[in-house]
């Protein structure tokens, strides 16, 4: 099981800030493709953080991971 977190417009589009997914060995890229087709989202340019650190598309996810989808940031 992995936990997905959504922020800003992604949270509003999906209608949830948190999802649980039962998956086996999947890369960040594969997860993005999976979500993109399920929710009709373009996640190509959304950054991903795994366990609060930015992760590359080829990162392999493991059970217990917390995966956050991070749209372009606008703090400051």
């Amino acid at each position: 099981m992995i936990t997905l977190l959504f922020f800003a417009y992604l949270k509003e589009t999906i209608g949830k800030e948190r999802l649980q997914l039962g998956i086996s060995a999947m890369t960040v890229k594969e997860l993005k493709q999976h979500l993109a087709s399920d929710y009709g989202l373009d996640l190509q340019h959304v950054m991903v953080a795994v366990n609060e650190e930015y992760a590359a598309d080829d990162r392999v996810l493991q059970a217990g991971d917390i995966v956050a989808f991070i749209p372009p940031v606008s703090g400051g």
Partner: protein
Amino acid sequence: MKFFTITDRPISIEEVVHKVIRPEAGAVTTFIGTVRELTNGKRTLFLQYEAYVSMAEKMLAQIGTEIKERWPEAEVAITHRIGRLEISDIAVVIAVSTPHRKDAYEANRYAIERIKQIVPIWKKEYWEDGTEWVGNQLETKAYPTGKPEGEDVV
């Protein structure tokens, strides 16, 4: 004392500055980011800031580490506010102290630029005629369709 903080309360400038004052310092610079009413002629009513708080605090601390690599004598404290902010409310305060002024200015500038690149904080503009999540670091564009498009994609 927490040097890198996300808060949903008003920020005390004095409090952030005091975190970096010390005998070795001969200069303290502060950056104070406030809510602007007009952007390209469009009137903002108020803003809503959202953060991935735990990660945002880590990224602020990372910026502190990056600054110490470049300006080893610098001390840095950053507080960013989230939630609803009105016009002229303080959204972020960055305080940097160094032995000499040049480094304090440069390191402070570095901090705000990095915040706009790596810290997971987002702002939503509430206009007279709608709302928009601000979608890039230049604060000039939003994504009316709800997602980055074309030249905006990072």
